[in-house]
């Protein structure tokens, strides 16, 4: 009986951690405007949320597979463990977002703004970051291997923990950045534009 009680409590607690507010979801779907909403664990797969305002919302553990967030304002969103497979977030504003442990194969972030965002434990296949902006963005255990990133801009960033092997960075700009020595070589081969870049061993 005691164990049953503990199990029930654990179940209730864990589901409440990943459960969104139905009122918030209704508001988002109706108005495309849901700021500081609790959308944790929500299923928005295949939804078109272009130009939506989701600033400050909690989208942790959300399923955003195949969803469209073109030009959406996602300032400061929490995307911890969210599923962004095939998601299109072209020209979205992800300033200050927590991008931790996301699934991001075939995800489009063309022209997306990642200023002050945090990338942690992220590894994407076929990621599209053409012309994206990374200003004071932090990277920890993150891989953009073979990503498409021509014309992207990296400024005031430490890329020691970012894997950029094989990524296309033609005409991408790296300013005031710390880059691994082998990556500096790669960036020069890519004809990236390097200004005040420290090539670190």
């Amino acid at each position, binding site marked *: 009986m005691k164990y049953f009680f503990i199990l029930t409590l654990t179940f209730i607690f864990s589901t409440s951690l990943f459960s969104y507010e139905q009122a918030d979801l209704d508001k988002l779907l109706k108005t495309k405007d849901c700021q500081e909403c609790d959308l944790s664990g929500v299923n928005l797969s295949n939804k078109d949320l272009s130009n939506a305002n989701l600033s400050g919302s909690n989208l942790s553990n959300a399923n955003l597979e195949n969803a469209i967030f073109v030009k959406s304002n996602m300032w400061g969103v929490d995307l911890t463990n969210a599923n962004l497979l095939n998601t299109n977030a072209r020209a979205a504003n992800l300033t200050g977002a927590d991008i931790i442990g996301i699934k991001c194969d075939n995800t489009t972030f*063309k*022209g997306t703004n990642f200023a002050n965002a945090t990338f942690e434990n992220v590894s994407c296949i076929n990621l599209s970051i*053409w012309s994206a902006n990374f200003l004071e963005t932090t990277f920890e255990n993150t891989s953009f291997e073979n990503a*498409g990133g021509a*014309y992207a801009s990296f400024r005031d960033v430490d890329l020691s923990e970012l894997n950029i092997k094989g990524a296309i960075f*033609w005409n991408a700009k790296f300013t005031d950045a710390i880059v691994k020595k082998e990556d500096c070589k790669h960036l020069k081969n890519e004809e990236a534009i390097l200004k005040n870049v420290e090539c670190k061993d």
Partner: protein
Amino acid sequence: MKLLLLTLSLTLSLFASSINFEKDLETAKQKAINSDKKLMIMYSTPTCPECNYMKKKVLKDKEIVSFVNENFVSVIMDIKEDEKILPYKFIGIPTFYFSDAKTMELLSKKIGGTREKQFLQIVKNVK
């Protein structure tokens, strides 16, 4: 004389430094039919970074230029300006369509930017 001019233009196209893009789809179709080549249609916009990477870097590659000019008649279509006359639906740009000029049957397509090596393989695989 005609044959000489044709041979000369073909030879020059092989040594061109860039792909010879025709001004519009109809011109490209006619030229492709007359020269028994396939069509390569690129959907693009002037501000699309991925398209510009393809135009300014990949499509300048000597081997690609030579192969494409030899086997295709090419045209760039602006998805906004040419919106009403686009022959195929698209989901993103750049998209490259390779088609039979007479029937406009789609032989293959490539969505998105890619490196020179992969693009060369794609154009070589068009049948």
